[in-house]
């Protein structure tokens, strides 16, 4: 596969339209995780899919900015630390671990139900960068072989 140049011109043109649709759908799933089915995990997977879509279509083009390996490692750790950090904040206030200490709001609102949207965001951060990192590292193993030949 021609890795330096990516795929053909038709694929690149259509990618410019579809990538932001996929990422918008992922953000919708994360933000409404406490109202409709979805949540952090599925939203994170869809955002990772949008990054993979970009990488597959454009190859190693320097103008297309996706998170690299170092940034993905750091963001993944930050996601987990936010999650556990919210639990520890509840413990400092004297309640058990992971209590919902922010006010719950009214039914069916977007900004309701306490700490759950923040936890959704932390999980989405970890899952999206984690899956994209797994993809990048597996692709790197294949290319080590090709460069050795």
């Amino acid at each position, binding site marked *: 596969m021609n890795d330096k140049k990516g795929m053909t011109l038709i694929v690149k043109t259509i990618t410019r339209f579809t990538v932001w649709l996929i990422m918008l759908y992922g953000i919708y799933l994360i933000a409404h995780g406490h109202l409709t089915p979805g949540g952090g995990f599925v939203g994170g997977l869809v955002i990772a899919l949008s990054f993979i879509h970009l990488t597959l279509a454009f190859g190693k083009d320097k103008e297309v900015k996706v998170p690299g390996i170092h940034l993905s*490692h750091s963001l*993944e*750790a*930050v996601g*987990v*630390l936010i999650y*556990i950090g919210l639990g520890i904040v509840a413990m400092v206030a004297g309640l*058990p*671990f992971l*209590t919902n200490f922010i006010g719950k709001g009214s039914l069916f609102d977007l900004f309701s139900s306490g700490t759950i949207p923040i936890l959704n965001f932390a999980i989405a951060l970890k899952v999206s960068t984690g899956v994209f990192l797994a993809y990048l590292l597996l692709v790197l193993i294949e290319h080590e072989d090709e460069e050795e030949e």
Partner: protein
Amino acid sequence: MIASYFVIIPLVTAFLIVLFGRKAEKIAGYLSLFATIILMWLSALLFPIINIQGAIVYQLSDWKIPYTISLVIDHLSAFMMIIISLIALLSIIYSINYVKKFTSNWGYYSLFMLLLAGLNGVTITGDLFNLFVFMEIALIATYALVAFQGKAEHYEASFKYAIMGSISSTLILFGIGCVYSMTSSLTMMQISARSGSTAGLYLVSALFLTGFGLKSAMFPLHSWLPDAHPSAPSPVSAMLSGVLIKVLGAYAIIRVFYMVLEPSKMVNEVLLLFGTLSMFVGAIMAIAQKDIKRMLGFSSVSQMGYILLGIGLATPLGFFGAIYHILNHAVLKSLLFLDAGAIEEMEGTRNLEKMQGNTEPITKSTTYMGALGISGVPPFGGFFSKLIIIVAAISSGRYIYAIIGLIVGVMTLGYYLGMLKKAFKEKKEPKKIGISLKISLVILACLTLVTALLFVPGLREGFLNKVVDCITDREAYAALFKVGAGL
């Protein structure tokens, strides 16, 4: 309050190592050393707390059980926590000089901390599905750690282990679904207060016995162990063979079959039969091995057979022998695996036929102590625990199993003496190993003599008898549900 720290501390350390340990390699080692020292101190505080106030029940998220996940620490969990923290601390001390030959130290320490978080979670959880989740966390960390040294045989061994592990995890999940459909609850204390139908009990027992039996290397399902345990780096082999097969295997079997579900005679018979078979098969296969770590792997299969024999007898004396042997074997097998790692560094090979006597005096003496201890020679602890298991077998009328236990004990002494003769030939210039390896070997060797002191009647009452009382008292465990629900 103290209960949730056991899971939070290793998880936070694992991800702090990913965040900061990639640039500066020494931070990874010192962070994990710091975390395991704190865990050791916390788990030493557990027994005095439980003796004063009874079992600790801690609900997450400020809801009452059965609507939330709970953490329960009673005497059995506190006992397993002490074993896990001790072996983890000594393995990390050993690893500081051992992992200098790998390229990515931060990956090793981060995976080790994840394994520790999973093991701690399995020990202290009070919810059946939470047990499954923490078990999977620990297992995925071990699949990656077994393949850490990147040679071809290590990948093959890890693949075999991963496939068999995932089959058994799927069977356990099936069993959890059946338990939920029978009793409509997942909290372990509430299930032990309710009861299900007898036909359902047989199905659930069969699924759980296959699933947890594979994790504890029972006879037909043991073939992953002699490939997976030698392929891991030596401190991880010590954790795997000394702690993982006991926490995920023997502890889970005791908790699920004797405290959550109703005790049934069929489970006892199966555990006795397959425990004895794995004792025998492990000993026979170990005699023919040339690779030192593979021989130690088969010896692990054999000693787990002793523990399963003790559990299957289902008398207080049998449980006492099994628990005492869990403690002794954890210390002794970790000592032997760490020794095998040191021998491999000095000799350059793991093949017993090609060893040339390059080892230095501390490794030699600690290997002698470990090998004699595990074969059941008197002043070491292993003698007392094997004696109690055989006496328990005789006193419940199972004479055949007691005789096979004695024969396997003699065979164990046989192959360990053969290993000692081949590994240590007389040569005058020993090579050097790092100082942290020597520290952990010496501490573990002293512990093999200290555990024999636990048999003395004064210390026995305060420590091991309380654990046995906790196992045999099923109503007290079911009554903890009322404590947690605030009734």
